[in-house]
């Protein structure tokens, strides 16, 4: 989840008459988790579905609602203008087909505002922009640009001075030499043409979705902004624009429209939507009995507009709240406006009888039987390593199931056997007193349509007198007492076990496992100084079989 750093004093100025404590107490009820606090600074985590909370301006809007300082919808006042036009060349259609934008004027941009806008931009890029693939934003100093603009394509040898640079660079150089180029260049694929926004004088404004031109850099002297969003879907680009527009208006800018034409593009509407939700759905879902006016006031506290009509509530939703899909989202808005802290938990009697799964019951019986036989229960990961599963135990590794790109070397392969893990456990306990007797039940995996999961049972006994007879007695007693099953042993060979001390565990003439004395070389590899005997068998093919 994204994290932003805020200043309490700045938030207080934006919200109105509230104390620092009131703010910190209320942040969680807006869905914002406080990660850490240091005097005036607070780091908070917000949900990726609320990108408007990526700045203190957006959080202040929500807080004003919760505190009842300002409630109802945040209206976007966009002045119609014909001074700002972007025409789109159809060459972008196959690469990054849509552009949208807005003008924001007469704002004050201090260092902190720039920092907030940068964080918002990055969070929007990462979240709803899907790492700039779906949509990306460029924020520019309006006064450095001569409208009208054209959104078109250019070749990879197109040159301009990119942001944070002083010298002219080609598109190819940007893509190969800069961090942003390396990170996001793949979005453009291999095509020889790349998207570009040029102004009236053919000066480059932006090379979306990679980098802006240096000339339009926003500084503390900037008063007027031009915001463009490009993307692969018109709606997504406009959603992103709606967030930025709302935040800029809250930051004190006056918005003016940008006219966009050509290649299926059109000017952004940034319109409010209407959605109807039944009062009964709200009350049933929350377990409350709120009247219409309470529902309406709660929705207004969540910065939506609402009126009641009969048993329905008609909601007006601003463009930046694209996280609202349907009526149930409005139920949550009511809950937040009403205050989660005001919902009293109720325990209604269960209409159903609870039942433990028969498999769990059988496994628990087996646990108890093994404990009676003096074995301690071990737990190992199902996702383990080639070293533990195969290399240390001489097992056949031709049919391994591995995961992609694991961050941990010890967790790369799904186990097809439990015993190797127990041997590994013994090796980590050579300083503990003997006898050491352990068992484990758990899932093992095999490739079969596409994966079969079975439950295995393995046990191990290590001490100076450990021998085949002992471990055979254990398995026979455990299965006989636990489940009334009688198994036999038939001579076998297995690379993990010593020849002449190894057998198959056989149930009704079908082999279901292996038992014996662990090969002395394996014991030596593991630096274990006492003999070890063990077994592993399938429970799915025996006691858990229907």
């Amino acid at each position: 989840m994204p994290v932003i750093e805020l200043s309490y004093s700045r938030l207080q100025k934006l919200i109105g008459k509230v104390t620092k404590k009131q703010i910190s107490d209320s942040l969680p009820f807006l869905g914002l988790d406080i990660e850490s606090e240091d005097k005036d600074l607070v780091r908070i985590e917000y949900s990726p579905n609320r990108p408007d909370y990526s700045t203190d301006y957006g959080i202040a809007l929500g807080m004003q609602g919760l505190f009842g300082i300002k409630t109802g919808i945040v209206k976007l006042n966009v002045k119609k203008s014909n001074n700002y036009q972007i025409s789109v060349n159809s060459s972008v259609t196959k690469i990054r087909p849509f552009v949208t934008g807005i003008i924001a004027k007469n704002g004050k941009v201090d260092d902190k505002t720039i920092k907030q806008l940068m964080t918002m931009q990055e969070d929007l890029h990462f979240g709803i922009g899907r790492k700039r693939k779906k949509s990306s934003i460029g924020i520019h100093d309006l006064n450095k640009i001569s409208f009208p603009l054209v959104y078109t394509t250019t070749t990879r040898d197109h040159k301009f001075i990119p942001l944070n640079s002083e010298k002219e660079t080609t598109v190819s150089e940007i893509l190969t030499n800069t961090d942003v180029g390396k990170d996001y260049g793949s979005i453009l694929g291999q095509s020889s043409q790349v998207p570009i926004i040029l102004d009236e004088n053919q000066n480059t404004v932006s090379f979306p979705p990679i980098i802006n031109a240096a000339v339009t850099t926003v500084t503390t002297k900037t008063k007027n902004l031009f915001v463009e969003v490009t993307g692969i879907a018109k709606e997504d680009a406009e959603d992103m624009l709606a967030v930025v527009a709302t935040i800029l208006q809250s930051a004190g800018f006056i918005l003016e429209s940008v006219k966009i034409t050509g290649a299926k593009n059109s000017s952004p509407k940034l319109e409010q939507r209407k959605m109807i939700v039944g009062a009964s759905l709200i009350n049933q879902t929350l377990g409350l009995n709120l009247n219409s006016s309470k529902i309406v006031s709660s929705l207004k506290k969540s910065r939506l507009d609402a009126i009641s009509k009969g048993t329905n509530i008609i909601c007006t939703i601003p463009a930046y709240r694209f996280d609202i899909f349907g009526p149930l989202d409005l139920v949550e808005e009511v809950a937040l406006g009403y205050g989660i802290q005001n919902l009293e938990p109720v325990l209604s009697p269960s209409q159903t009888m609870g039942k433990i799964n028969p498999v769990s019951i059988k496994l628990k019986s087996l646990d108890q039987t093994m404990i009676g036989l003096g074995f301690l229960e071990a737990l190992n990961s199902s996702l383990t390593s080639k070293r533990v599963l195969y290399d240390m135990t001489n097992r056949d590794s031709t049919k391994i199931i591995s995961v992609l790109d694991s961050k941990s070397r010890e967790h790369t392969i799904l186990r097809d056997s439990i015993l190797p893990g127990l041997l590994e456990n013994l090796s980590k306990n050579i300083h503990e007193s003997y006898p050491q007797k352990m068992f484990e039940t758990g899932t093992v995996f095999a490739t079969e349509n596409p994966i079969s999961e079975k439950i295995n049972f393995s046990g191990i006994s290590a001490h100076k007198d450990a021998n085949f007879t002992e471990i055979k007695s254990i398995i026979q007693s455990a299965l006989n007492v636990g489940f009334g099953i009688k198994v036999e042993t038939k001579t076998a060979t297995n690379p993990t076990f010593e020849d002449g001390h190894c057998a198959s565990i056989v149930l009704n003439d079908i082999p279901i496992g292996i038992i014996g004395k662990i090969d002395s070389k394996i014991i030596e590899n593991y630096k274990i100084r006492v003999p070890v005997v063990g077994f592993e068998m399938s429970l799915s093919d025996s006691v858990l079989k229907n």
Partner: protein
Amino acid sequence: MSQVFHEIEKKIIASLRDNPKQSPESLEKSTQLSPDQIRRGIEWLKLKNLAIVTESKSSILSLGKNGLESFAKGLPERRLLDLLKTGPRKLPDLQKELGFVFGPSMGLARKNNWIEVSLDEISIKTPPSELLGEKTLKLIGNEKLSKDKIDGNDLSGLLKRPDFIIEDVVKTKEISLSDLAKSIKISDSVGGIDVEADVPEIFVARTHPLKDTIDEIREIFVTLGFSEILGNMTQSSFWNFDALFTPQDHPARELQDTFYLDGINSKKIGTPEQIRKVSESHKKNWRYQWDINEARKMVLRTHTTCVTIKHLAENKPDEARIFSLGRVFRNEKVSYKHLVEFNQIEGIVVGKDASLRNLMGIQREFYKRIGITKVKFWPTFFPYTEPSLQTMVYNEKLGKWIELFGMGIFRPEVTKPLGITQPVLAWGGGIERIAMLKYDVGDVREFYNNNLGWLRSATKCQ
């Protein structure tokens, strides 16, 4: 009340009651026990606070070569005086008889004025009947004797003489009875053992502490009317993500968060209707080209919710309380607070009257039963529930609020495509977190280390 004692203890106590302060050697003599029996008996009595052992250092004296000779023949000056008893003797005679002690004995006798020396004869005057040192010689003789039993003045003369006295510093023990032992009644019964002595540690075979926590949680939910269902750890992306309204380009679905099985895809992921309706819901709400091949990719489940949603889609109950418990996986760096594989419990309530307050009530009851009473709820976000809440519980040991189970009501975008018509409450969370609080474990890896030192000692009921 009388106390049962071992025979050895009885004999020692009896002997000490007769003779209150004794050395181990003297106890050996008085009790007729072997040195080893005495040693053990004293040790047992000491542990019971019945015997007091005081250790002290003392000098033990014995006679050296010259001392022994003097013990046998008398001190050199005594021998001189003896020779003179029968009358005056000539000097060469005496010299011949006394040998090399003649000089020192003459010197001493003259100095003390015991003899009179004329020109050619030596005669006795009036010597004392006992000479200095003779008492000591007699006392020590061929034995060893503690220095404090000897008259210091009598001894001092001998100490100056070469090789007369050998002095050894030794530690000595003195055993006496405590006040308790002086009054204790000794039972007549025989064969009693020391029931208070330390015994060797033996190790209990037991279930794993984490398994105990899992069992405890399972039982709580069963008593709350929930039934357990099982499901696979390997799942198609369809059930792990798509059916739960997680778009295919969502960051949670990337390799860096989720374990994909190398080259393994599922042929049959769901019914044609399920696939069609899920894909439609994605296209409509998330606006992208849904790809069935993406949904076929097999993953290690990132939550147990895939098990419950599959169960709901297959059974479509109007009323149900169901839970699922098991391992889930996240592609994370392993640390003291993160594992790649951990246990999760996840439950659902289906029913027309299911409400958010009910869900909160079930959670509160669960926490109460595991001993957590300070609980509060905060709003949060999950892609497949709306509204969504998280529980915060207050941990007394840590002195802070910590996040436990998440919960919410399944979105219609999740339930509708799968033909589920009733509201579904869902909740779930990690079990290791609860076990960490329960067993006061600070490093979550401990649960999978199988460290016998810990497993053999962790208290079962906490």
